[in-house]
Structure formats: C-alpha cells, structure tokens
C-alpha cells in the first residue's frame, strides 16, 4: 500500500515546528525517525494531512552531561545511543536493552524521542525511561514542561503531550549504588516482546518497569516494595496480579503474567553494574 498524500514540512527551528503544529492542529503529525509512523502511513492507518519532519531541528539533537543527569536530544537515533561513550558509561542499561530493539537498519533511523512520543506499550524505551526515573523535556507554545516518565505514558499510544514536541530526555547518570537488569521474551530476535522488564536497583530500592504486558509501560509499586523487603519470589510475583495484562494473538493475559514473572526473575538474576 502507498501512503495517502500529505503536505511535507521541514521546519528549520523548534519554534517554527511548534508554530506549524499549532497551525495545523490535529491534521498534522510530527515525523521523527519514521520507523513506526511510516509503516502506519503505508498501511493507511495513519493519514496526516500535514507531516512535519523534525530532521533539521538542531535543538532536538545532542547528548550532554548536565550535573547528575545526562540529557539526550529527542532526535537521537538508537544507533547513536549505542555508539555514544557517555551513554555507555552513564546509562549501562541501554547497553543491555538497545540490541533488542528491532534491527540495525531500524536503529539507524529510529529515535528515542519518536519511540517515547508514540508510546507503544510493547516498546522497550518507555519502560526503560520509567525504570530509570527519567524526565521528558517537552516544548510547547506555552514553554517548556518537565514531565516525569512516570506521568508521561497515559495509555496505549497515549501520552501527556499537549500540542508539544519532546525536546530531550533527562536521565540520571548511574551511581555506584545502582545495579541494572533487563530481560525480554521474544520468539524472534528484534520482535516486540511478549513480556519484558527493565529493572533499576538503587541500594535496596527497585524500579521495575514492564513492557509488552499492558496498555503502557507499567510499574507495580507493591512489587517493587516486595523486592525491597526481600520477599520470596513467589510473593513478589503475586503482585503482578495488579497489572491488567493484555490478551492478544501471541499470548493471553495468563501467559503474559507468567512470562512477565520469568522476565523479572531473569532480569534480577542478571543484574549488572
């Protein structure tokens, strides 16, 4: 199938992009790496009248250390994340997770901001950002908003963005008290996971964000608390019952719950610095 027709806009600045977005409202869609939007357009599932390509927005690029956080421009591609020495050093969980995201050719175009803005519940990045306690820097007509990743994902393909574009992600740099775990269960390499989890342990506290299990990247406070209390694994896994697991062709909610538990156990077993 061929994409429906649209107007292609290539703003040179973030302000210009935001103005275009405001002008065209619901008819416009921003284009980041295009690795999810383009397939949707090619299937005629997405049919924007106006496509605003963010490729030339220098404000959305760059990786920098700012105190105890690392700031990653929204248009940073997965391949750039994987190759960046600061990211490797300060966000070690990305090293565990990024090779699982699709394939080389997709990672060469797909961006961190695009993935976050799409909020696919099966994608790795939203869960990673929740586990990392990241902050989303969003820029809109009314200025900048800093949104906790925990408050950002509102549902399937639904985010807290309101006429805004993601400018950057702020991720706390890894500390010596931290350990990281990541595990996902896919039948084929690079596919969306049947269930997966990203775990960040800071001293004895945990942030565990599941993906591929529900309508959004999901944390279960009771479960994290049980981990902190060093409850036995069976008790920990019981808290998975708090998740409203997805039923689909590849796995029903029972299977998903089971697989989420296995993913968690395996992630915890493989925790690294």
């Amino acid at each position, binding site marked *: 199938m061929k994409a429906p027709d649209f107007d292609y806009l290539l703003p040179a600045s973030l302000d210009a992009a935001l103005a275009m977005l405001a002008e065209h409202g619901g008819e416009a869609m921003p284009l980041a790496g295009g690795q999810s939007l383009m397939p949707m357009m090619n299937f005629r599932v997405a049919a924007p009248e106006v496509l605003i390509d963010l490729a030339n927005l220098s404000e959305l690029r760059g990786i920098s250390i700012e105190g105890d956080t690392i700031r990653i421009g929204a248009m940073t591609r997965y391949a750039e994340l994987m190759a960046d020495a600061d990211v490797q050093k300060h966000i070690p969980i990305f090293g565990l997770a990024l090779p699982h995201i699709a394939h080389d050719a997709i990672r060469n175009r797909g961006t961190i901001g695009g993935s976050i803005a799409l909020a696919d519940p099966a994608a790795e990045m939203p869960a990673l950002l929740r586990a990392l306690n990241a902050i989303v820097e969003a820029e809109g007509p009314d200025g900048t908003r800093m949104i906790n990743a925990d408050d950002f994902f509102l549902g399937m393909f639904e985010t807290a963005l309101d006429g805004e574009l993601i400018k950057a992600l702020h991720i706390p740099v890894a500390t010596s008290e931290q350990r990281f775990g990541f595990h996902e*269960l896919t*039948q084929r390499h*690079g596919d969306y996971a049947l269930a997966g989890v990203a775990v960040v342990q800071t001293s004895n506290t945990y942030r565990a964000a599941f993906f591929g299990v529900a309508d959004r990247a999901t944390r279960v406070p009771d479960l994290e608390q049980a981990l902190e209390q060093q409850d036995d694994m069976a008790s920990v896994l019981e808290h998975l019952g708090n998740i409203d697991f997805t039923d689909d062709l590849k796995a029903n909610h029972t299977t998903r719950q089971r697989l989420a538990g296995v993913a968690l156990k395996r992630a915890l077993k493989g925790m690294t610095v």
Partner: protein
Amino acid sequence: MTGPAHIFDKPNRYIGKPEPRADAARLLQGRGSYVDDQKLPRMVHAAFVRSPHAHAKILSIDTEDARAAKGVIAVYSGEDLAAHVTPYVGTLTHLAGLRSMPQHPLAMEVARWQGEPVVMVVATSRALAEDACELVYVDFDELPAAVDSETALDLEAPVIHPELGNNLAWERDMVAGDIDAAFATPGVHVVEREFRFGRHTGVTLESRGTVCDYDPSENQLTVYYSGQAPHMMQVIFSKHLDLPEENIRVISNDVGGSFGIKIHTYGDEIATAAAAKLLKRPVKFIADRFESFVTDIHARDHIVKAKMGVTEAGTIVGIDFDDLTGIGPFSMYPRTSAIECNQVLNLTGAPYVMENYRAKGRVVFQNKTLMCQYRAVGHPIAMAIADGLLEDAARKIGMDPVALREINLMADDSYPRSSATGMKLDDLSHKRALRKLTELMDYDALRDERTEARKNGIYRGIGFVSMVEVTNPSPMFYGIGGAPIASQDGATVRLDAGGALHVSSSITEQGQGTNAILAQIAAGVFGVDLNRVKVTTGDTATTPYGGGTWASRGAGIGGEAMLQAAQALKDQVLEVAGVMLQTGVETLDIQGGAVTDLNGTIRLPLADLARTVYYRGNELPNDLNPELVATRHYRVTDFPFVFTNGAMAAHVEVDIETGFVKVLHFWAVEDCGRVINPLLVDEQIRGGVVQGIGGALYEECHYSPDGQFLNATMADYMVPMASEMPDITIAHIETPTKTSVLGAKGAGEAGTGGAPAAILNAVNDALSPMGASIWQMPMTPERILTALDQAD
C-alpha cells in the same frame, strides 16, 4: 531404464558437481528482472477495493467519486468484468464428488471472504489508484459467516453456496484391511491423538503480480507473470478472456519465490488482464503485503483425530484417522482445493509396512481465504500423523523411536511394492536413510547428552521423521481430471555457429537453480563446457510446451527431457561429423566443445562443424541434411508419481518456564535419486526445512470468529528469521529412479514436508519427563505452557 555409464562418468560431465549458478551474478548485482521491474509505455496501475467482510451481500456500488478522482483511468465492478470474462470452477473429474461454484474475477452480488476483490480501479499510479479506492462506496449487508471448519457442516451453519445445500466440498473414505479387528487384537496398544495444524500461507518475498499488455492490432495479450506455470496460464487467459491461445504470450522472468502460491487463478490477476484488453494498454498489478496475506492461497488448516495400533513387540498394525480441512469459499481453479486432503489420505504412513488402514477426509467450505496447493502439499500433515503417533506409541511401549522405525519401515530390497493406500513405490531407501541419519547426528551421544541435561533441568528433545515425498507427477495428477496442466515437459538444444549451445525448456526458474541444472545436464551430456550453454525458460513464445515447475518436477521431468534432447543432438552432430571426418560415428565422441576420438583427441572443433553446416553447406554431400537442433519431451509413465524418501531429525530445547522452543540442530538425509547439483539441492532442502520449522513453531493465519484475518502483516504473521534457525546438516543417498535415464527425483518439498513432524516429536520428547505432550502446530509458547499445565 538407467543411463549409459558414459553420460555420468565422462571427464567433462557436470551432473553431480556443485557448480555455482551462472545467474547468481545477475541477481547479486541488482540486475534481476521481476514483474514489478517492468515499466512499459502507457502503463497504468491497478488497485482493488476488497471486501472488508467475510460474508456480505453487495447491495450497491457507487463509483462516481472514484471515476472523477485524479489519475483514474477506469473503474470496474464485478458485473463490468463479468461481461468480458467467463466464470471458472475449480473441480476436476478424477476427484469424484468435488463441488464448487463458478467464480468471477471480482465478487458478484456476494463477497465470500475478507479480501475478495470487489471493485478494480485503474489509475496512472498505484498511489492514485489506492486514493480512488477510498472513494468507492460499497453498501454491504453483512451475512453470517461460516468460519470455523469444525462447525461448517452443522445444520445451523450459514451455507456459503445455497445451490450446494451445505458446506461440504468433498469427502473420501479409504479403507484397507480391518482396522477395528487389528486394534482389538489382544496385546495391541492403541495411541490416540487429536492433531491441529494451523493455517499457513507462502509469504513469497516477491508478492504476486502481473503486467498485462494488450495489443489490439494483433489481438495479442502479453502477460508478464510472476509464476510457475506459464503454459497453464496461457490456456486460462485464453479460455476466460476469449482470446486464441496462440495470441497469448506468458513471460516469467525472475520470480521472487513461489512455493505453490503462484500457480493459481487469482481474480485480481485475471481482472488485470481483462482491464488491459479493455483499455488496450499495459496494466500493472502488484499485490501489496496485506493483499498477499488475504488473497494468496493458504494451506494446511487440518484437524485430525488419529489412532495407531502397535504390538508389544513394536509392529504397527494400522492407522485410523479422520481429517477435516477448511478450504475457503471456493475450490481454487484449476488445481482444486481437495488435493491436500487427498494427499493426506494417500501418504499417511507410506514409509511403513501396514496391513490395516482407515481414513476419512472431509473438505469444507468456509468464509476464509481460499486454500490450495502450497509447498509439500499434505505432506507435513501426513508425516506428523504417522510419525507423531509412532513416537507416541514408542513412548507407550517403552521402545526407542529409531528401533520402532527399524521394525516397521519397508525394507530397502522390498521394492517395487505398494503402500497400504495402494501407492506404487519403487527405488526407496528408508532403512539406509535412517541409519545414515543416526550416524550423522551421533544419536547415541546425543541421547546421553539429553539425559545429562535433564538432570540439570534443561529439557532437550530429539525427534525423527521417516518420510516420503511425491515428486515427478505423471498425467494422473491433474491432466487425467481435465485440468489444462501439462505433465510432460520439453527441452530444445541448439548448436549455434560459434560452438555454443542454446537450450530452452518448459520448466521454470523461481530460484531453485532450474536454469543451472539444465545447463549442467546439457553441457555434460552433449559435451561442451558449462559456460558455453545459454538457457531460456519462462516464456511460452520461445520454449517447448510443458507444465512448468511445481510438485518437485523440474529436475526429474524437465531434466530428463534436457538429457534426452542433448543426447539426441549429440547423435545428430556426430552423424554430421562422421561424414565430414569420413569415419564411423562409433569412433567419435564430443568433449570440451570438440568432436574427439573416443580417447579424447580433438578431431573437429564444434564451431568448425557448425560453421561448415551453417555457412558452407556446399562442402557437405547433398544427401546430408544436418539438424543442429533437437527437441525431446518426457513424461513419467508407469507410475502416478515418483516417490522419494528421507529421514530427518531435530534436536530442540524447550524452556519449560516460558514455553519457548529453540531448535539446536537439524539433520536431513534425503534420497532424491541422482543429485544433479549438491550445492543447489542442499540449500533447497535447508530452505524447505526452515519453512517446515516455520509451520511447526511460528506461522499461523489467525481469524476472528467473524472471519477477519487478524495478523495480516509481516510483524504479526511470523516467518522464520535467521537468528532462531539452526544449522542444518544434509546428507544424500542416491537411489536413481528407474523411470528415467537421469534418475533424478524431486527434492523441493522434503524439508517442508518432514521438518514439522521431526520438530513435533523433538518437542514431545523434551516434554516427556513432565508427562506433557502437544499436538497442535504451530507450537507457540502459550500452547506449550498449556500442555505443561495439563500434564498427567
């Protein structure tokens, strides 16, 4: 019939050598020529409005806005095209009782599956044609759909064709011996299982497509066709578009995979030809991936309740099964959709000595995509039934599955003979194949390793299959039933003035290496270097008449025709050489591009001979009439088809926490008769195995209860990718078929036919310590976890 030794043992022979394909270079440099690469002057593009419903009455069609849309050339409804295309019915007389109804290229009055083409839009680009499709308004009145094959025959089920009274397309019973008495015999253990085989489709990487070009000045239709059987399509276009056969030229250049998908009559392709005729200009239709999923033929989709009886000592007393399969709303034209079920009835248990056999097959209509012959038709079902039950029985009586096979496989020296179902068998090597397999894989060591691993909570399993494959079909396959499908193939070999051979054949190339093996046979048998042979296939205007490539017939039938033609040309050339050299032909040979003595001394280069014949005929005696071209045709006689056999094994590891299966290694020992090119046949078998693994572990067309195809994307219909596939070790046994000089049988379908049973058995072996087993494919993580939950 076996060939004179010199055909295979000559110094310049190529048969049996791992020669790389000459046409690989073209494909590796992006110079292939696939249908979508065709760009003709004035060419326009087709797109289709397809039924969004599984079953719906078409109340009205409003095309006004679409006709006015940018770039639109024409819009056709079912009625518009019905005036120009006669309907077709997918029945054959030798499949007694098979019923279907007339089909039109676009739905008329009622749409019967989601994806059925309803309206065709032709525009100056595909994108514009798709835009206009969105402006076609079809008022559908949704009807209740018969989706589930298990309820399609219920009295209250919606009847898809009221004229037929119910949804039964075909049924057949097959009985040999007395199965009830055999099972009731004291000491006989009966195992019983219900097998479920998911619906698959071929997912050729190049989707279906055609460019049809009509020239009214000569009433000539030229069809660029991504397919397997150009001559069959020539007849079909002729018959249904009212054009003389000779005015239709079907050209299949490079074909990006077919696997049985591209050998049928698809409404959208017929509509494209009709549009070309009506518009008097070239029309291109390339199915997009969604269209491929909802319209390419599907296959499998069988539910089988089966029993096998085995004595304490391990003798199989018989098999009893009931196969139910759903084929969509029509039987596919012209090959029909009853063949797969028929194959299951014919082939189940064919490797084993068995006195008693009872099988019932029922083929039902349903509101899903049409089903027809896809790679290894019926084989994966037949092999999984027999070998699945066999290994189940082996566990029950506590016997090793290899030992149980040893007892029951037909002896290698017992041929010719018949199977329990009356199939004529010859030149098979089941026992040698199994022994070679167990040596190749070091079965004993693998078993020990499995036992050790289990102690550590690692669940590995080993599974086998002993199989037959139907290849080299005779006229008994289709022609006898009235199908316009040639079972014979032709080959022409021409010596050109420069001493090179130009050969052509009616078999076709879809990547198997058809052209390569034709060149090898011609070069070796005639006596020129391989690089002096040029091959033409896939064009009804320039090749001999024949069936094309399907049912693993290319090498065995087309190859034999080529051998005969090359031998004939050699005899003709030597006759000329004998006159020119004034010597008896019995003292001459052709080697390395020259006429030689029997000891290889060059007497006359072929170029000199040919130039004399072509340019300086005055130097030849007047009564010599040199013919430097020869054509021969070949068909299989005496047998309905030529069986091959093989033995395969899978080594798998099941993660019992997740239900994930990892295939660790796969082995295949194949007896496809004479191997023409091991390099090509090995990777062909590997590809088949991987397709079989796909069916066993990943691939399934999911439908909602109301007949919506739920996973019609490549992200959701899971095909096997490189990361999860094992290395596959291949070995051969060569028992040439006596039906030809070449002795080659087919090999294209073995892997796909055998691998699912081997994987099923390996998974069940891995699950056996838990008392669990699974009988449904694909064996998804969820199904394996469910099986573990239900373990005794």
